[in-house]
């Protein structure tokens, strides 16, 4: 596998040779931030296009076909429209919090995004408690949503934000339990090591039944975490107009929209990192020629392929099921997912202790 850290260390050494070390660090920070935000936005555009096409296919339609070939330029047109729209300021709203909220949501999403391992060495943040950091960073997105609902001075926004708080804080528990069971299996929290440990067998195969159950629970909880149907209570159109972002317009709304899509990408990316092996290619022990062919496919392709497959799974669920009621959402989490997750963690620990894993 090609290691991207050779490129990054080369750039690092070059910068240190021409600049003082402080300035080199600054330039590196700017370069990394630029690349991360650029990748973030490009992936968001791809995701929005994919969402529209997949949604159309599930409803037996073709989706956007007019703007550009197969409607490829449709999303660019939408983004351009969003950029030139006016940002309306609301009377009697809390101006500071109202303007701060979308940035909090995007910030948490970008921070989590920078933890994703795209290929060997191609990862912005990688340290010994990486999984914990992902959970912490993704948790404070809910703060932005709560603030958006509170500061809008609108009853619909407020109800949407409160629902979102109840929902996202509950489902974080399930996500934590699923991640914990994988951490129990691998014995590490560093993301690069988690991925490297899966080189000779993805965790969903090595952890067999408990890993599969954890994967399913993770997908359900991740879907709820991203506020998408069937868990889109915070923005239930029929009841709350648009939920917490009712009063937002222009690019402030755009930030919520992009963050929602990128949270979906992040949930899928973490699922593929923890369960499906991240950027490691598919290896079947015994088939050496097959394994070498798989090694020639670059890690970025593997990671994005797995991630988009998981995204497709989540979209499939989204366009199949009707929305749950708020009491059903909460009872699904507290009465079903959490007990099953706890039991699953116990089984996983038992498997690891008894050596029943592959």
């Amino acid at each position: 596998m090609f290691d991207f850290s050779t490129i990054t260390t080369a750039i690092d050494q070059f910068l240190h040779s021409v600049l003082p070390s402080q300035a080199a660090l600054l330039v590196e920070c700017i370069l990394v931030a630029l690349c991360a935000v650029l990748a973030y936005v490009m992936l968001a555009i791809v995701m929005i296009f994919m969402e529209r096409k997949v949604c159309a296919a599930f409803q037996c339609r073709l989706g956007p076909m007019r703007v550009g070939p197969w409607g490829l330029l449709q999303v660019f047109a939408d983004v351009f429209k969003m950029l030139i729209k006016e940002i309306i300021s609301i009377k009697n709203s809390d101006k500071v919090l109202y303007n701060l909220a979308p940035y909090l949501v995007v910030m948490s999403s970008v921070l989590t995004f920078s933890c994703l391992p795209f290929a060997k060495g191609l990862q912005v943040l990688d340290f010994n408690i990486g999984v914990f950091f992902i959970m912490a960073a993704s948790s404070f997105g809910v703060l932005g949503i709560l603030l958006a609902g509170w500061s809008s001075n609108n009853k619909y926004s407020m109800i949407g934000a409160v629902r979102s708080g109840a929902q996202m804080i509950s489902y974080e528990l399930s996500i934590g339990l699923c991640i914990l069971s994988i951490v129990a299996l691998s014995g590490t929290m560093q993301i690069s090591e988690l991925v490297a440990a899966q080189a000779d067998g993805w965790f969903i195969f090595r952890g067999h039944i408990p890993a599969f159950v954890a994967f399913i629970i993770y997908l359900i909880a991740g879907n709820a975490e991203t506020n998408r149907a069937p868990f889109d209570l915070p923005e239930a159109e029929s009841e709350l107009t648009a939920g917490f972002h009712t009063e937002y317009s222009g690019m402030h709304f755009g930030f919520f929209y992009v963050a929602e899509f990128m949270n979906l990408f992040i949930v899928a990316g973490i699922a593929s990192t923890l369960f499906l092996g991240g950027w490691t290619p598919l290896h079947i022990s015994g088939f050496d020629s097959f394994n070498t062919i798989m090694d020639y496919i670059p890690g970025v392709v593997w990671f994005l392929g797995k991630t988009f497959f998981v995204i497709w799974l989540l979209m499939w669920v989204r366009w199949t099921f009707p929305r749950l009621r708020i009491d059903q959402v909460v009872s699904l989490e507290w009465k079903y997912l959490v007990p099953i997750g706890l039991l699953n963690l116990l089984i996983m620990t038992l498997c690891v202790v008894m050596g029943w894993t592959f």
Partner: protein
Amino acid sequence: MEFKETYIGRIFYGMRSLLIGLHTTLKEFFTKKVTEQYPENRKTQHISERHRAMLYMPLDENGNNKCIACGLCANTCPNGTIVIKTKTVTDEETGKSKKVLVDYTYDLGSCMYCQLCVNVCPKEAIAFNNHFENAVFDRSKLFIKLNK
């Protein structure tokens, strides 16, 4: 208590019904899409025969129509879309006088496609066809003379 209503049973039955739903949408994902891309598909587009786009008068090969100029269609039209001009002709052999159609004018602009005129016609002399591309730049072009 039946197994279906227990805590464990509800999990399994719930999962089963969710999987049925997923199976249904998955089939839909791979079926042929129904979207018609209109201006490009002019050659292959299919419009239902019952679609009412425009009134016309079926003519035989000599240009004769079946209209007997009774005026029922003009009377029954709620919008006054149809205007019929007639003249009375006396048959030379029998000496009987008979109404004959001179001008059958149909105003496409005020037609609401209710089909009452077609239903009321005793001779099936008028019908609706599928020519729906009727946009013109001048209102006067919407007045159409149906008989030759």
